[in-house]
């Protein structure tokens, strides 16, 4: 028995819309990768959209976000324009990191989006520091740090978890457990696959939620963030999710069965959520198609923007290594 979606039609459709925007944008990215418009590494989030959408809708615009190299969705939902994201992937100066970062390094100061970190676990200490700065300055703010299940094997994870708990910092650790660190299954890399136990080792509050269900993600994140915001210290939230596509565009997927992927696809966050809304009378097929068409339109406009955007002059190659006037 599926519980009723506890949101009004407008908000529920917004969640669906954001998941659709990520999905359609990334499908286009994969296509553009095939044609060589986008290069470098491209890690698609397809299948995991409910995590970013649910989590980010539970946070406030003033909160800090730290993400990984699989962060297109987080950046988009956070409010970075699709134009700026697409231009970044095209390596254009109009990109959200001026073309210096690419797919793995989307940044946006305006929305307090601290990237786009492509070292597994690398963002966790950074999140601890952001939260420390807030605490020391008396600022009430949550720093939400996204990372995958692969990161829990890194020393950075354990050091950051300990520091955050030891200093009672307002960090929300958002673990998107998609069961594989690149091609290595969690049970092949961790002696303890119950990730909440790791949080308990640091006396940190923890919860686990169905990461394929945008409502469950949103509610769990809202509750966890509320505790963190209230000064209860850090929180470890595990989203159980699944990546439908390969790890990156170079991954032949030898490490998992097609049947397993297909089974998870049955729980796909887009169709399950839209089915629920339809069953509750909060969405008609026509409305769904309209949302989808809007997403497609936004993607087409973003691609057009990125195509037309200027490349930065190579005369500017050395800019932004150091602050102007600070060091040669």
């Amino acid at each position, binding site marked *: 028995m599926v519980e009723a979606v506890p949101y009004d039609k407008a908000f529920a459709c917004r969640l669906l819309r954001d998941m659709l925007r990520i999905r359609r944008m990334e499908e286009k990215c994969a296509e553009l990768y095939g044609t060589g418009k986008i290069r470098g590494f491209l890690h698609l989030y397809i299948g995991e959209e409910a995590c970013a959408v649910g989590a980010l809708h539970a946070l406030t615009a003033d909160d800090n976000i730290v993400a990984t190299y699989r962060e297109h969705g987080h950046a988009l939902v956070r409010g970075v324009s699709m134009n700026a994201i697409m231009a970044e992937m095209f390596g254009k100066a109009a990109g959200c990191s001026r073309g210096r970062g690419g797919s793995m390094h989307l940044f946006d*100061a305006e929305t307090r989006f*601290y*990237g*786009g970190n492509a070292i597994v676990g690398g963002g966790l*200490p950074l999140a601890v520091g952001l939260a420390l*700065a807030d605490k020391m300055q008396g600022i009430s703010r949550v720093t939400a740090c996204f990372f995958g299940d692969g990161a829990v094997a890194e020393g*950075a994870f354990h050091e950051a978890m300990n520091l955050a708990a030891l200093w009672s910092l307002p960090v929300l650790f958002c673990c998107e457990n998609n069961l594989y660190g690149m091609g290595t299954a969690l049970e092949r890399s961790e002696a303890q696959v119950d990730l909440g136990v790791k949080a308990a080792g640091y006396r940190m509050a923890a919860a686990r939620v169905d990461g394929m269900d945008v409502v469950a993600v949103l509610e769990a994140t809202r509750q966890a963030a509320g505790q963190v915001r209230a000064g209860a210290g850090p929180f470890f939230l595990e989203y159980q999710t699944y990546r439908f596509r390969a790890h990156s565009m170079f991954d032949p997927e030898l490490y998992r069965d097609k049947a397993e992927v297909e089974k998870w696809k049955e729980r796909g966050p887009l169709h399950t959520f839209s089915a629920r809304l339809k069953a509750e009378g909060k969405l008609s097929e026509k409305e769904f198609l309209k949302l989808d068409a809007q997403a497609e339109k936004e993607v087409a406009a973003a691609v057009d923007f990125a195509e037309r955007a200027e490349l930065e002059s190579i005369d500017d190659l050395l800019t932004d290594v*150091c602050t102007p006037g*600070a060091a040669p």
Partner: protein
Amino acid sequence: MKISYREAMRQAMHEALAGDPRVFLMGEDVGKYGGTYAVSKGFIEEFGPEWIRDTPLSELGFVGAGIGAALGGMRPIVEVMTVNFSLLALDQIVNTAAVLRHMSGGQFSVPLVVRMATGAGRQLAAQHSHSLENWYAHIPGIRVLAPATIGDARGMLAPALADPDPVIIFEHAQLYNLEGELADDWQCDIARAAVRREGSQVSVFAYGGCLPKAMQAAAELADAGIDAEVIDLRLLRPLDTETIAASVRKTHRAVVVDEGWKSGSLAAEVVARIVEDCFYDLDAPPVRVCSAEVPIPYARHMEEAALPQPAKIVAAVKELLNA
């Protein structure tokens, strides 16, 4: 006024902590212990445990936290006990602090100061005697400083904290007990190398713990009638090529002293720049006095043999001058 290098560094930190609420000190044993080298002795009582923050033995974690705190509006001084342990934090320094500004298209600067002791000479053996300044000096996006005098120990921190980008300060462990007069004009230009002794016949370049050795060698050379100029590189990245070249154009001979191993050393970079910029000013090939290519041994005589020493510098200069 005569003070120690340790005291000069302590005064600089005290001034920074007292003068700017964004500045805080974080690291292993900086608080209750008073600092491994006693540089922050008494600070925790004065500024409290929030601002003098003892950390667990988590170099990667707390250096990364320093980066985050810098992004979040603070001006952290992160003390990594020694360069040897900084290897555990290398990822955060190289993959985050140094690149964040560029990778974000100029949106996020990291105004972080990392201090660490460096160097050998105390029979601490292979794992506690590294001089890896050059590893950091290789990385674009960070500034690398090496105070070698009482004045620079007093004067380098303030401009380092004012730098909007990450700065690493290497304090040679052998220097903490160094005593000397603190001149009134201790303010430091962290963009320039410093001429520590004017001379005409040969330029001796050194930094950090090797500077006193170079000065001692220059004094001995003076007794032998050889007039050596001593340049304190002090800014290891970006190198002050202008001051280096000006000295070589004057003396036409160069000896570079570096406690790092010779292969891929900072000395190699200095020599390369001299050759690139002043080849036709040189009367002889530049010479390097570096550490022997061996993990630093424990036995005192072996350690001494492995490191640059005044006698080796004197010998190198004499050979260069055919004196």
